[in-house]
């Protein structure tokens, strides 16, 4: 290579790195859950994603305070609520305090003739009045009588009771010391809705910090050293924590992997300049990978960078091959040219393996594919074209031949164990076959970085709050709000029937607080004129102990209600149910969408099952016009279906990748026997890893599958060296293979320690798999000594 050629290459590389750096710096990074959501969603999935990212549920945080006694917890709860309400970060802060309850009661009472489902044309006829009054009298002698006693003169027909009855379907949290508490009474409960959307993780993080600060302030304000504990749960908490976990893990793994690999390389090279040179391909590869993902996806996910640790492990191999081959050589003539064809095939198989993932609809996988493919190609190109330009004519590189000789002598011993390969192969196959049922974990939650404990806490708090997770949404789309609300009322009657049947445990809708205008007007129309009502009341009360002359306030209230305007969404402002109601109604581009959450009975196992078949059947009988559409969105089933689709797709892609690798290898090797010698150790490694995972009780997620494909893609790099010629690789090559394998193990092995399931699954599969691939390949090799003693 001429000096001019060197300079050109170095300049070209520097330019490329400069451009990549700009792209990387300008790239947008995320660590939210979006990586698990589909790239091209179906309409149902779009609704699901919408709910997960923007729905009211995504803004909900549940807070529990324990420690101290009930009165102290109540003080903390009140102080926290006051502070949080004063902040602008929250749309709603509810802790069950009297003031809020009173506000709600007053609002419901004021609008009772618009809201009460009992108000119809017969209600204020003589017979209807009499029946309602008798019912009220019966309430008066019940233990609950004193609750309604004072309201009777204004509300003798008991409309408020009618309204409250409807609301009581959803369980209310228990109240003590004037605030919400858990069922065992040991925790104070608060419910908080952030103003910012659930997808805005920075805002969510700030809101959570505000809750912590409010808690700390309330805790400090209380005299004495009572130890209170704060627990938070909800989608925002999960998302923020997951992001922190992913960030932390990615940093930790990348740092450790770099550290381990640098140590290894220092041991091999014994030279800092060479070490730095060895890291050039890796660094360039990583930059290229991130830049490519940023260009291809618009946003780079933290998990993708986490996978980058694996890239370090593999990309650094190219440098090792180069330097170890150069070690002990005097000129740059016989350098990589000897090994390059083998490395090239290895690279191509890796690219095949990672490349197929580009086709995945699962963004996490597609990003990984693009990142790794680009990164590996960039690293290989830098090794091939740029690195030699940096090397001095006579580099002082360590000669690893002695180590290689030792390895070479160990080969025959390994080769004598070659019978182990088929044994492992068959055993792995049998174990996997025996456990083929339940091999795969079929829940999307398996991919979630949220721990099962956190999920259990969330389920418990929701149950305590009477805010169980909706298992399905009944979605009504209509051209305008009034049509949608009317349809919701029709559907509601069917849903009530389904509750009676037990097909669903309950449902929510806007109707109790916001009836359609048609319903409100019909109720208003059934209120008689004052004179008419007074005379009917006189007749109705003839034989009753409750006399009409005591009921003047009732007549006045009815007259006022007749003059009252109907209510709309804005009328709910200031009540604690305003948000719940308006969040069920979304204005879309085409009109309005009203979503009614359906609840399944609380089940600690988390199987949020409703009888969807029955619900669909019942819905089919609901009449609706052509402009209105009704659909049932099963949240859990939909997300599981989404995951199943990812898994099926991953299986198909893996098979395509495998086929591509096979094709590539057959073309490159041009010999069935050699193909077999490359494939057998890979196949055995895959089956051994699978068998071991199954025996260890892991249920496999799609990342394990991807890992297995990578075992083939990465492992082929090693196996190819053993199948190159008739003899086993030269000592120096053996030494470089060992170190290449160790760096790969370091990269993937560290991923295996991650608490993020997707990272852990890939690490635990590829780390051991790569080592086994090398080991099995070595066992099947024909020792150099046996063929050609020298």
């Amino acid at each position, binding site marked *: 290579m001429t000096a001019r050629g060197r300079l050109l290459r170095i300049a070209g590389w520097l330019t490329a790195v400069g451009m990549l750096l700009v792209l990387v710096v300008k790239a947008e990074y995320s660590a939210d859950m979006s990586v698990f959501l589909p790239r091209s969603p179906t309409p149902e999935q779009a609704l699901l994603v919408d709910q997960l990212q923007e729905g009211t549920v995504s803004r909900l945080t549940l807070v529990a305070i324990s420690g101290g006694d009930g009165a102290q917890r109540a003080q903390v709860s009140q102080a926290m609520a006051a502070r949080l309400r004063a902040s602008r970060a929250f749309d709603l802060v509810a802790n069950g305090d009297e003031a809020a309850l009173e506000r709600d009661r007053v609002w419901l009472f004021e609008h009772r003739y618009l809201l009460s489902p009992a108000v119809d044309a017969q209600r204020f006829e003589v017979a209807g009045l009499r029946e309602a009054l008798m019912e009220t009298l019966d309430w008066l*002698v*019940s233990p609950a009588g004193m609750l309604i006693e004072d309201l009777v003169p204004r509300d003798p027909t008991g409309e408020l009771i009618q309204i409250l009855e409807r609301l009581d379907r959803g369980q209310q949290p228990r109240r003590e010391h004037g605030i919400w508490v858990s069922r065992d009474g040991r925790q104070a409960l608060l419910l908080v809705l952030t103003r910012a959307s659930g997808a805005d993780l920075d805002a969510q993080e700030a809101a959570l910090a505000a809750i912590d600060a409010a808690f700390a302030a309330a805790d400090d304000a209380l005299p004495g050293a009572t130890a209170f504990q704060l627990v938070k749960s909800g989608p925002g908490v999960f998302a923020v924590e997951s992001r922190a976990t992913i960030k932390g893990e990615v940093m930790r793994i990348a740092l450790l992997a770099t550290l381990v690999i640098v140590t290894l390389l220092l041991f091999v090279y014994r030279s800092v300049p060479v070490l730095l040179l060895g890291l050039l391909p890796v660094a360039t590869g990583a930059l290229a990978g991130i830049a490519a993902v940023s260009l291809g996806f618009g946003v780079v996910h933290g998990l993708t960078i986490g996978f980058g640790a694996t890239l370090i492990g593999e990309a650094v191999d190219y440098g090792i091959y180069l330097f170890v081959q150069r070690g002990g050589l005097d000129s740059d003539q016989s350098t990589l040219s000897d090994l390059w064809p083998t490395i090239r095939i290895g690279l191509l198989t890796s690219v095949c393996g990672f490349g197929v993932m580009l086709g995945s609809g699962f963004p996490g996988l597609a990003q990984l594919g693009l990142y790794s493919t680009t990164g590996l190609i960039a690293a290989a190109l830098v090794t091939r074209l740029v690195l030699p330009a940096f090397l001095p004519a006579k580099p002082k590189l360590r000669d690893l031949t002695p180590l290689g000789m030792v390895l070479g002598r160990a080969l025959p011993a390994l080769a004598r164990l070659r019978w182990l390969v088929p044994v492992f192969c068959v055993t792995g196959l049998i174990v996997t076959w025996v456990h083929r049922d339940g091999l795969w974990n079929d829940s999307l939650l398996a991919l979630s970085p949220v721990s099962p404990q956190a999920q259990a806490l969330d389920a418990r708090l929701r149950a305590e709050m009477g805010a169980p997770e909706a298992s399905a949404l009944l979605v009504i789309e209509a051209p305008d709000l009034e049509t949608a609300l009317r349809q919701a009322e029709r559907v509601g009657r069917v849903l009530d029937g389904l509750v009676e049947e037990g097909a669903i445990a309950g449902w929510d809708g806007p109707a109790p607080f916001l009836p359609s205008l048609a319903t409100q007007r019909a109720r208003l129309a059934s209120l008689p004129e004052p004179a008419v009502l007074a005379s009917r009341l006189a007749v109705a009360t003839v034989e009753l102990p409750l006399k009409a002359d005591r009921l003047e306030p009732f007549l006045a209230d009815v007259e006022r209600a007749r003059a009252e305007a109907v209510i709309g969404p804005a009328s709910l402002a200031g009540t604690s149910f305003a948000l719940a109601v308006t969040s069920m109604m979304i204005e879309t581009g085409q009109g309005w969408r009203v979503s009614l959450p359906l609840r399944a009975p609380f089940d600690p196992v988390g199987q949020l099952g409703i009888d969807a078949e029955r619900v669909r059947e019942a819905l089919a009988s609901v009449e609706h016009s052509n402009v209105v559409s009704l659909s049932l969105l099963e949240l859990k089933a939909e997300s599981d279906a989404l995951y199943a689709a990812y898994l099926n797709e991953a299986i198909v892609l893996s098979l395509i990748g495998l086929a591509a690798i096979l094709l590539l290898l057959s073309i490159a090797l041009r010999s069935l026997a050699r193909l077999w010698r490359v494939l057998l150790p890979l196949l055995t490694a895959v089956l051994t890893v699978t068998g071991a995972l199954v025996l260890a009780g892991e249920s496999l997620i799609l990342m394990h599958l991807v890992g297995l494909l990578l075992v083939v893609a990465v492992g082929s790099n090693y196996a190819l060296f053993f199948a190159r010629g008739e003899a086993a690789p030269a000592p120096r090559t053996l030494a470089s293979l060992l170190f290449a394998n160790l760096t790969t193990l370091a990269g993937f092995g560290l991923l295996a320690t991650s608490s993020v399931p997707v990272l852990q699954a890939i690490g635990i599969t590829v780390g051991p798999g790569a080592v086994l691939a090398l080991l099995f390949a070595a066992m099947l090799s024909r020792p150099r000594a046996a063929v050609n003693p020298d």
Partner: protein
Amino acid sequence: MTSPRLRIRARLIRLFVYAVLGGVLSARAAGFDLDALMTLLSDHPHGRVSFVETRHLALLDRPIAARGDLVFIPPDRLERHTQAPRQESAILDGDTLTLIREGRRRELSLSQHPGIALLIGSLRAVLSGDRARLERDFVLSHAGTPDAWILDLLPRAPEAVPSLRRIHLVGSRGQVERVEMIETDGDRSVIEIGDALP
């Protein structure tokens, strides 16, 4: 059948006798202090008894009544099964009052309804002879003999439940015969407890 008037007269006579004898008896029955009354109450075998509750409300021209059975299961379960005017069960267990009416269950937390807590909770405390519990909420005064006693409960903190003036109980041995709740607005409610039912 005794006429209501006669019954009232009998009651007045009984009260008069208490008043006159009270001084004499209190000396003789020096042993009958509040603890003795509480012991009688707590030792009383509890089972199913009939009751009639009459509510006298200013709002109404005439009193309204409910009748049914009471079941007390010590220490803190009190069931009130009303047969008339309509089937209804109210079950107080711990802090929770469950109302079952026309097949629908409604749960109330006593801590959420201090008024109900004071009324029903005090009856439960009397039945179980829980002096500490009663003295937490009321100032207690009693008179009479073990065979015929009266117990008055005056709320310690009237502002907590402004509508309640006092609760007045009449009984014999461990059996509570009559509970009268008097409200500040003149409304009152009387529960007459009958003999044990099989």
